[in-house]
C-alpha cells in the first residue's frame, strides 16, 4: 500500500472523500486485508482522540483579563514625553539558571527507577528577591501567571542586584538609550506595548524564581525523565528552554535549561523532586552567578545577550542606532508553515551564546527588567473599555 492509498484511507475515516473516491477506497478495502487493518487502526486513532476528556476550565478568566487590560490601559495613558519615560526601560538583571547534568547509565543496565543507589540531585540556588516581594502592590487571586500590579514603589526594584553593578549598569544604559529613542520618536508602538505586557509578565515571575543548578552525577534515563517531568509541571511558560545533549561517546549526557519556577511553587517543586524514588536531594546552597563572574569564571558561563521585546527592540543589547531612520525593525520571524494571525508573540528572549566553552554545562539567562507602569502614577485597576 503506497502513501497515496494510506492518505485516502485517512480521508475515508474523516469522510473527506468524494463519492467516486470513496468507491475506490471501498473496493480496495474489499480486496486488501492490509488496507482493512490500516483503516481500522486509523479509525481507532481517531476514536482515541475523540474520547479524550473535555476538561472543564473551573475558573473565571475575567478577573485575570481585567487586571492585565487595566495595566495596558494605564500604560497607554502615560504622557508620551514624560522625562520619566526615559526610565521606562531601566533594567535590572535577574538570572535563572537551571542545569542538569548527568551521566546516563548504559541502556538496559537500569530499568527501575529505584535501582540506582546513591543517585543524588544537588540543588543550589539563590534566594528570591526580598525587595520585589515587599513592593508588590496587588496580586491576583489564585493565579501565578498574572503579575501583580506595579506601583511606583517598584522603581526601587528596577536596579541591579548588588552583586552585579557592571553588568546591570551596562544593560541599564543600553535599555535607557532605547527608551529615549522611543521617546524621541514620540511613539510607543502598539507591539511594544504588548511586548511590555508580556515582558512584564515574565519579569514579574522573575522575582518569584530562583537561580538553580541541578546536578545528577549518576542517574538512569528514567530518573532524568522523571526529573524532567517534574520540572515540566512547575516551570512557567515564558523563557523556558529545554535542551538535552549527548556529549562524547561515553554516554555522558547533559540536560540544560533555563526555567522560571514561581517562588510560590518552589516548595512543591522541591518536594516533588524529593519524592522521586532513588534520588536524594541535598539541601539548598546559595549560589550566585555574579560571584562566579566576579571570580573570573565567566568563560564557564554562556550569556544570553539578546532579548526580544519586539521588532523595534530586536537588537537589544547592541549599540542603538543614532537616527530614527535606522530604527526600521527587521521583519518578524515567521514559521514556514504556520503564522499566528497578527503575530506579535515572539519569543521573549533568544539565546546567543558568546563563544562559550563547548564543554560548559552552565546556561545563564539574563533578563532585563522593564517596568513601564512604575514610572506613572499608581492607578486602581480599571475595567476593560
Amino acid at each position, binding site marked *: 500500500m503506497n502513501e497515496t492509498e494510506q*492518505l485516502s484511507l*485517512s480521508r*475515508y475515516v*474523516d*469522510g*473527506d472523500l468524494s*463519492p467516486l473516491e470513496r468507491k475506490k477506497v471501498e473496493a480496495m*478495502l474489499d480486496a486488501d486485508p492490509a488496507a482493512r*487493518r490500516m*483503516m*481500522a*487502526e*486509523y*479509525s*481507532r*486513532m*481517531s*476514536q*482515541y*482522540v*475523540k*474520547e*479524550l*476528556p473535555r*476538561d*472543564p*476550565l473551573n475558573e473565571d*478568566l*475575567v478577573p*485575570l*483579563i*481585567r487586571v*492585565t*487590560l487595566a495595566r495596558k490601559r494605564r500604560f497607554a495613558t502615560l504622557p508620551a514625553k514624560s522625562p520619566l519615560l526615559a526610565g521606562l526601560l531601566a533594567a535590572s538583571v535577574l538570572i535563572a539558571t537551571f542545569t542538569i547534568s548527568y551521566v546516563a547509565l548504559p541502556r538496559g543496565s537500569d530499568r*527501575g527507577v529505584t535501582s540506582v543507589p546513591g543517585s543524588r540531585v544537588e540543588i543550589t540556588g539563590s534566594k528570591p528577591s526580598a525587595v520585589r516581594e515587599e513592593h508588590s502592590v496587588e496580586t491576583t487571586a489564585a*493565579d*501565578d*501567571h*498574572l503579575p501583580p500590579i506595579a506601583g511606583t514603589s517598584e522603581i526601587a526594584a528596577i536596579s541591579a542586584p548588588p552583586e552585579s553593578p557592571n553588568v546591570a549598569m551596562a544593560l541599564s544604559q543600553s535599555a535607557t538609550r532605547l527608551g529615549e529613542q522611543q521617546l524621541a520618536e514620540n511613539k510607543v508602538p502598539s507591539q511594544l506595548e*504588548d511586548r511590555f505586557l508580556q515582558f512584564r509578565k515574565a519579569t514579574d515571575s522573575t522575582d518569584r524564581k530562583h537561580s538553580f543548578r541541578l546536578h545528577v552525577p549518576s542517574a538512569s534515563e528514567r530518573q532524568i*525523565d522523571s526529573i*524532567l*517531568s517534574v520540572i*515540566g509541571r512547575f516551570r512557567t*511558560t515564558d523563557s*523556558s*528552554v*529545554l*535542551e538535552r545533549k549527548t556529549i562524547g561517546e561515553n554516554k555522558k549526557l547533559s540536560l540544560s535549561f533555563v526555567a522560571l519556577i514561581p517562588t510560590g511553587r518552589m516548595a512543591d517543586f522541591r518536594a516533588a523532586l524529593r519524592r*522521586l524514588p532513588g534520588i536524594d536531594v541535598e539541601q539548598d546552597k546559595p549560589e550566585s552567578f555574579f560571584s562566579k563572574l566576579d571570580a573570573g569564571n565567566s568563560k564557564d558561563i554562556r550569556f544570553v545577550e539578546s532579548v526580544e521585546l519586539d521588532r523595534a527592540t530586536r537588537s537589544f543589547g547592541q549599540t542603538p542606532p543614532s537616527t530614527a531612520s535606522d530604527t526600521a525593525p527587521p521583519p518578524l520571524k515567521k514559521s514556514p*508553515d*504556520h*503564522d*499566528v*494571525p*497578527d503575530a506579535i*508573540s515572539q519569543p521573549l528572549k533568544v539565546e546567543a551564546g558568546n563563544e562559550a566553552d563547548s564543554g560548559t554545562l552552565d546556561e545563564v539567562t539574563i533578563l532585563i527588567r522593564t517596568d513601564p507602569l512604575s514610572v506613572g502614577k499608581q492607578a486602581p485597576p480599571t*475595567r*476593560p*473599555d
Partner: protein
Amino acid sequence: MADDRTDEEWVQRYLAGESEAFDHIVRRTQDRLYPTVLRIAGSREEALDVLQETYLKVFRNISRFQHGCSFYTWIYRIAVNQAISSRRKRRLPILNLSRSSETGTHEFEPIDKDAPLAGLEKMVQDERVKIVDDTLRSLPPAWTAVLVMCDFDELRYDEIAAVLDIPIGTVRSRIHRAREELRKRLEPLIQDEQEPPPPPPPPQDSKPGRFSPKAGRPGH
C-alpha cells in the same frame, strides 16, 4: 439568568461602549475554548496563558472583527494559533512510550498511592486516555493541532484549513502524517488492546462540521 444574546450581539454592545460586555464575551467563550487549547497547549498552566493572550488579542483587535461572521470562529482561530505558537516556544521532553511500556508503568506522573481504588476497567480507560494524551502532546505542535481540530473538535478539513490559513491539501497530508505517527507511537497500546478494532465508519459525504453547515472561511 439565561443569556439569550449571541456572541456577536455582545461584541456589538461592547463596541457601542458597554465595557461590561467584554466580561460576557470572555465568560461565554472561555469554557468552550479551554478543552481545545488544553489539548494543543499540553497543560493547564499553558492553556490558561494561551487563553489570556487570546483575549488580549481579541480586546486589541475587536474593532477589526467583521460583522456578519461568527465571533466564535474568529476567537477559536486566534486561540488555536496562539496555542500552537505557545507549544513551539517550549520544548517538552519526548515521551518514549516503548520504554515506559517495558515496565508496564507510565512514569510521567507519580503514582498516587492515596487515590481510591477504582474499578479495573476505569483504571485501564484512564491509563489509555493518559497515554493517548501524552503521545498526542509529543507530536509536533502543528500535527497535534490538526488532530485535535479534526477528531477532538470534529472540524471539517476545509474549516481546519481556514483556521490555520493553509491550503486544504496541506491539511489532508498533515492530518494523515500526524495520524500515522500517532499510530506508530501507540503501537504498543494497540497491540495490548484485546478488543476488536472499531468498525469502519459509515460512508458519508462529509462531516457536518462544527462552525457552519457549509464550508467557509471562519470569521471572515
